[in-house]
């Protein structure tokens, strides 16, 4: 059973192998990520001629504006969304998108439909929401998700109340406000692009300027606080940037889908890399790709809404990444597990046969079929075949018996497991170096003869 357990261990290890690496320098994995970033950039640029040739897309003025706007917004929200994901605040996007509504309504009530002022109103309302969440979680025992839910629902209700009041007015000047809330890409005009581009660039510049600080508060806030970084200020600054990204994206994706726009590129990027700078750049590129490509795809047929198409592209990229990202994706996990099972099937079966035989008297005790197929199921057949070809097991009277070589191998393996167990228990006190605990490996190969002797002595001690 021991080897069985260790194979499970190694699977978990490989799943959890997404450790954040702090060592600078270029590994093959790094080059792969930079390659991917380059590839996606080229794809995004090539998308225009390809879509013209094969999809018959005509780049009208509207489509050009919408596609550029989508790409810009995808870039900004993709880059900033990474921090929301890593801080386990993915749903903050959903909350702030809803919370922006009363700000939009008040700004509209006071100043009319001027995009800049509406955005400022939305930003202030979202920022108040962030502040409220911090106040509630800081002073009560309510968890962050509950506080976020309260802000989402209550702010939105205030917005709806104001909107209904606005709509009860006789003049029709509120036309266009609703499209702003539910997101309508076609409503974006060239002037808006300059606004989005300008504000977005400013946000990204701030991100670059405070890069080290943001990295620190994202991964180890306590450490940052202990080292004199102004935690409150930095957290609020980062939240403000996220508010800006959301407020800009609202008119494209709409209140409800904004969260997808914010987190999907980051989730996709996270699957490919363990380094923050790579993740942010890749997320920005993927976001820009989704924004542009989604806008273009939605133009291929009448009646496909732009916002949802962009979201489907972005979430699709995230799901593809989760499936195929090298080393981490689900397909790779499954493949590795399958390979491991295959490679170690014989070893496991031998182990079980040996222990059964010993428990029933001597190592030469015959073992019935039912025992192995009971433990190993369908893989028992393959395992036994492996063992027979290696000459470690033979069939006698419808039962399986270990050969001399088999007994020897099994005993050696069992001894190896014991040494591993001793290493785990006493390795530290014996002054042995720390090695990766993979019990399928022979421990003799990983430690020097001197160290093995120490382990052997300790083993004898404990057995006595």
């Amino acid at each position, binding site marked *: 059973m021991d080897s069985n357990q260790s194979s499970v261990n190694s699977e978990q290890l490989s799943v*959890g192998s997404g450790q954040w690496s702090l060592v600078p320098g270029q590994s093959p994995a790094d080059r792969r990520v930079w390659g991917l970033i380059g590839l996606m950039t080229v794809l995004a640029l090539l998308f225009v001629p390809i879509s013209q040739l094969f999809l018959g897309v005509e780049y009208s003025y509207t489509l050009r504006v919408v596609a550029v706007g989508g790409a810009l917004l995808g870039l900004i929200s993709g880059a900033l969304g990474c921090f929301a*994901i890593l801080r*386990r*605040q*993915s*749903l903050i*996007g*959903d909350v702030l998108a*809803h919370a922006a509504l009363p700000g939009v309504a008040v700004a509209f*009530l006071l100043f009319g439909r001027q995009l800049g002022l509406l955005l400022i109103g939305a930003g202030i309302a979202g920022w108040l929401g962030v502040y409220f969440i911090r106040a*509630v979680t800081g*002073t*009560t*025992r*309510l*968890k962050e*998700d*509950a*506080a*976020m*839910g*309260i802000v*989402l*629902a*209550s702010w*939105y*209700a*205030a917005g*709806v*109340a104001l*909107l*209904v*009041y606005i709509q*009860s*007015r006789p003049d029709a000047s509120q036309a266009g406000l609703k499209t702003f809330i*539910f997101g309508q890409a076609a409503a974006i005009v060239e002037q808006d692009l300059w606004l989005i581009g300008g504000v977005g660039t400013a946000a990204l510049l701030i991100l670059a300027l405070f890069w080290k600080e943001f990295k620190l508060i994202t991964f180890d806030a306590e450490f940052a606080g202990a080292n004199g970084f102004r935690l409150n200020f930095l957290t609020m600054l980062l939240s403000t940037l996220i508010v800006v990204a959301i407020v800009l994206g609202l008119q494209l994706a709409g209140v*409800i*889908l904004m*969260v*997808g726009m*914010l*987190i*999907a590129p980051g*989730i996709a990027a*996270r*699957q490919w890399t363990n380094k923050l700078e790579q993740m942010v750049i890749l997320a920005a590129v993927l976001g820009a790709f989704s924004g542009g490509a989604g806008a273009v795809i939605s133009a291929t047929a009448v*009646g*496909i*809404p732009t*916002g*949802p*198409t962009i*979201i*489907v592209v972005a*979430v699709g990229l*995230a799901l593809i990444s*989760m499936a195929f990202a090298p080393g*981490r*994706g*689900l397909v790779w996990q499954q493949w590795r597990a399958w390979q491991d099972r295959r490679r170690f099937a014989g070893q496991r079966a031998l182990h079980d046969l040996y222990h059964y035989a010993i428990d029933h008297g001597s190592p030469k005790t015959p073992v019935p079929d039912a025992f192995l197929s009971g433990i190993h199921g369908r893989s028992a057949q393959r395992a036994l075949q492996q063992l027979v070809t290696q000459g470690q097991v033979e069939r006698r009277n419808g039962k399986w018996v270990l050969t001399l070589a088999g007994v020897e191998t099994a005993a050696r393996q069992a001894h190896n497991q014991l040494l591993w167990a001793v290493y785990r228990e006493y390795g530290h006190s014996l002054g042995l170096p720390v090695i990766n605990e993979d019990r399928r490996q022979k421990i003799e190969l990983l430690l020097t003869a001197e160290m093995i002797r120490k382990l052997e002595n300790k083993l004898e001690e404990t057995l006595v």
Partner: protein
Amino acid sequence: MFYIEQLLIQLLLNFVERDGLNAFWRDPQNTAVVIGAFIAICGGLLGVFLLLRGMALVSDAISHTALLGIVIAFLILTAVVGQAADLSSPWLILGAALAGVATVIITEALHQSGLIKQDAALGLSFTLLFALAIILISGYVDHVHLDEDAVMVGEIGLAWANTNSHCLANCETVTITPDDPRAEIVRQCINCRALGITPRDEGAIFQEFCANCGVYTPGQAWAAGLTVGQPLLVFWPKAVTVMGVLLLLTLLFVLLFYKELKLSTFDPGLAQALGFRPAWFNYGLMLMVSLVAVGAFDAVGSILVVAFFIVPPAAAYLLTDRLPIMLFLSGLIGAAGAYFGYGLASGNLFGLWQMDNVLINLNRALGLELASRWDSSISASMVLMIFFFFVLAWLLSPRYGLVSTLIRRHRQNRYFDDQVAMGHIYHHQDTATELEELMAASLHIHLRWTPEKMTAVLKRLQAANLVKIVNGGARLTPRGRQQVESFRQANLSSL
């Protein structure tokens, strides 16, 4: 639903007159408040378990993805029936509820893969499903009032107008066929328009039509003069029945499975070990949440439903530590919010505050031209009222409120200051450094306090007869000495 209503009406008529019943439901306020309270109690009860499980935002996701369930059920129904399906069909509600559960399952699956965190999984799955729903709607659903707006924004104030009528007496349904003596037969030229001729011209072909044939409900029959006695009708708002049934289901669910829900919420491991299958109760809870969310769509819209799930339990959580009381308070706060929220919609806060006056003053002060009548969404106002109660609980909760926390901290600060000052005096009293360390005028320097604070602390200690000033030097009274010694014994016993 229809039969449930009839049973209920029969029951109610034992206590109230028919006219009273009709008048009651015809008042928009009564209908809105009853429906609002039903939704609030359902949401409050289920929301408590969501909150305690840390799944508050799941209700938000579910209420959005339900749209996909509605759309898919609608498309399937339309394909099966051959014509646009009825939007109030129970199949659509079932589809929506299943979509809600599917959201949870997909989220769990994404999370279980170990690749992304729970919150990211939720955000990913529900935006994908909602985006698909909108694409499906814009691509395949035409000429039907099924769009984001229909689901996102509801109005509880109109619920009173959407009723079923139930007949109590003179319930004659009249069917008029062409053979009936009451049938009005008219002759009509059927080819006149096509040929451009008048009925008098030759070649005009006539056909006889029955102008008033068809089936008349008792009410229609009486209005058309086909029956003699006026039918006695009771009008019953449909939403009341839907939410009433959901409330009943919720109550049954919570009462029957109270023990299991409690256990699987607080200790899923133990529940599993005892054989309770916490996963089943999890999905059961999600199914109930979906059902309530969908049932409340019409009345309050899908985003505002979320408020009824999250805010009342959060307020109740700040008021109590016991689950039964929390459930009760949560339902109560929700229902009270529904009751007082109705007034808020017309700008009236408990009768203390009139929004209209505020608007008029705003216009006057800032020179704005806002409409001076505040008449707003009732459901949103109910949510705002619940939020108001949450803020009250947050400020005033006896144990966890801001005010009581501040008072407690203030007391602790004072107590700590007293102990520090008395400890200092105790340490130096009757020693060689006494004259230097304990002069009342310079005491603050040794403690590194401001003179004002020192004076206040000394005054307090003198008033409590713990310290006295002798010749300008601070000394402990016997009572003060005793207190310091007992403090040292209790807190510094390791010294």
